[in-house]
């Protein structure tokens, strides 16, 4: 599904990532872990087209997507969430999800402003679909609230609902459990399982080890910008290098 080849990223002389390669199989849940500063978020930013890497390539379904813009990636079925939650704060929860359906609709400025019948029909369809996505994430009762007024836990869910509206082939979750309490984290775990059940490939960066070990099929460990290990949760838990890296830091 996703293949990353020898990604290197240098920021003004500091090497944030060095020759990182890995791949994610279709329908898999892949965890990316590592101590702070390991380069996890940088890696995500490169894959999702927000940074331009110094060198290396990214492939999506065997198609080279190196340096594609985020909007182009969205049309190819790749979507992501953000560590700090990037919602459209002044819009309602429903409208947030409706933005997720942007690529699934086509009305332009003229047909929207002149209310062509196609635009009206499309709008109705978008609304319907958005409501379904809210239900999927279990936040239907908040549909008409302004996103800025949502409690933090719900914001995370909304961001995922919005991403799922794109009907992505692959979803990148950047620390989805950060800031959630134990219960919310458990719910999130279930939601991620449900996402996978719909056939979507999941890659997540996460600090919550319990969650990662619980739901991931395979894990990539980064340390100081380099790939330290890759394997099943069990293999990773027993990997001596990984243990040293974490204990050395803590």
């Amino acid at each position: 599904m996703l293949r990353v080849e020898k990604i290197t990223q240098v920021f003004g002389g500091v090497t944030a990532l060095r020759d990182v390669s890995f791949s994610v199989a279709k329908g898999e849940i892949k965890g990316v872990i590592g101590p702070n500063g390991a380069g996890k978020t940088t890696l995500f930013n490169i894959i999702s087209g927000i940074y331009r890497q110094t060198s290396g390539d990214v492939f999506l379904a065997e198609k080279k997507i190196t340096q594609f813009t985020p909007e182009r990636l969205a049309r190819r079925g790749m979507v992501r969430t953000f560590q700090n939650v990037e919602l459209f704060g002044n819009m309602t929860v429903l409208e947030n999800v409706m933005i997720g359906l942007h690529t699934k609709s086509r009305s332009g400025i003229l047909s929207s402003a002149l209310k062509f019948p196609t635009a009206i029909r499309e709008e109705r369809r978008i609304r319907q679909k958005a409501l379904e996505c809210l239900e999927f994430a279990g936040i239907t009762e908040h549909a008409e609230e302004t996103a800025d007024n949502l409690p933090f836990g719900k914001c995370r869910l909304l961001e995922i609902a919005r991403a799922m509206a794109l009907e992505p082939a692959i979803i990148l979750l950047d620390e989805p459990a950060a800031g959630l309490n134990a219960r919310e984290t458990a719910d999130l775990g279930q939601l991620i399982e449900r996402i996978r059940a719909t056939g979507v490939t999941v890659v997540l960066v996460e600090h919550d080890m319990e969650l990662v070990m619980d739901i991931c099929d395979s894990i990539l460990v980064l340390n100081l910008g380099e790939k330290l290990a890759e394997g099943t949760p069990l293999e990773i838990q027993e990997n001596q290098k990984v243990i040293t890296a974490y204990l050395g830091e803590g």
Partner: protein
Amino acid sequence: MGTERNVLLKYLLFSAAVLVAPIFFSGGYLLNVLVFVGINTMLALALNLLLGYAGQISLGQAAFFGLGSYISGVATANYGMNPWTALVLAAVVVGVIAFTIGFPILKLKGHYLAMSTLGFGIIIYILFNETIDLTGGPSGLSGIPYFSVGEFQFDSDLKNYFLIWGFALLMILFSVNLVNSRIGRALRAIHDSEVAARVMGVNARLLKVQIFALSAVFSSIAGSLYAHTMTFISPASFGFNFSVELLTMVVIGGLGTVYGSFLGAALLTLLPEFLRTLQDYDIVFYGLLLVLMTMFMPGGLVRIPSLVLPFLAKFKVRRQGNA
């Protein structure tokens, strides 16, 4: 959804008010002022689509207004073109210019965007002043014909009132529909978080440029209408100060609201007429208004009802509670 009906109802009420307004002001010079309110409404609306919805500032709106005016004026006064054709020609030319410069300009953000649009506005202003053979330079361009349909000429305040408000109402309808659509949503998304909008597949760069061009076309049409109702134009109407005045209208009326554009335009056009004593000092007034509104009422005038109504309701409830 009931809201869709409300949107339509609001529009119809507004249109009705516009249609009957001349009855109360017929013959007076105030009707002439209301013609200007119409033109400024179009200009404020154009800026509001860009600034209030897409969150992209432009301090060069007067340039598009001026380009529309001058293309219309020069084509009709110097080359005998039909005013209607000139209006369309101006709108197309200005649209193409805005679309072209939009790509490099809208790559910039925030303060840099403000400065570059301002720079563009001043360059155009200098052109109006310096291309004397074409525009008459600082002393202006006169002899611009009125609009006409057959024998009927739009040569009085009343006729122009309906002409200009006809256009303004069309633009308002266009904008109301647009902002309540998929495109309007995408614009607001760009405003809130451009990176998230892009991740959701919104082609932010293209959309920003498109809305910039649309805003320029609206301004150009307003410019043509202005030129053919005034029959005289001079560069002084299209300088940096007017761009700032438009910005003030939008901020005062309410960023991101269609009718707020009208409120701001109406207030800033009417007030100086009532406060004749202010004379040149209206500039102090604008500055003060701009600062105070941004600091204390960032929602603009249009939000007043939603601030006051709940308060009144609470008050009423309490009174009933006491009784």
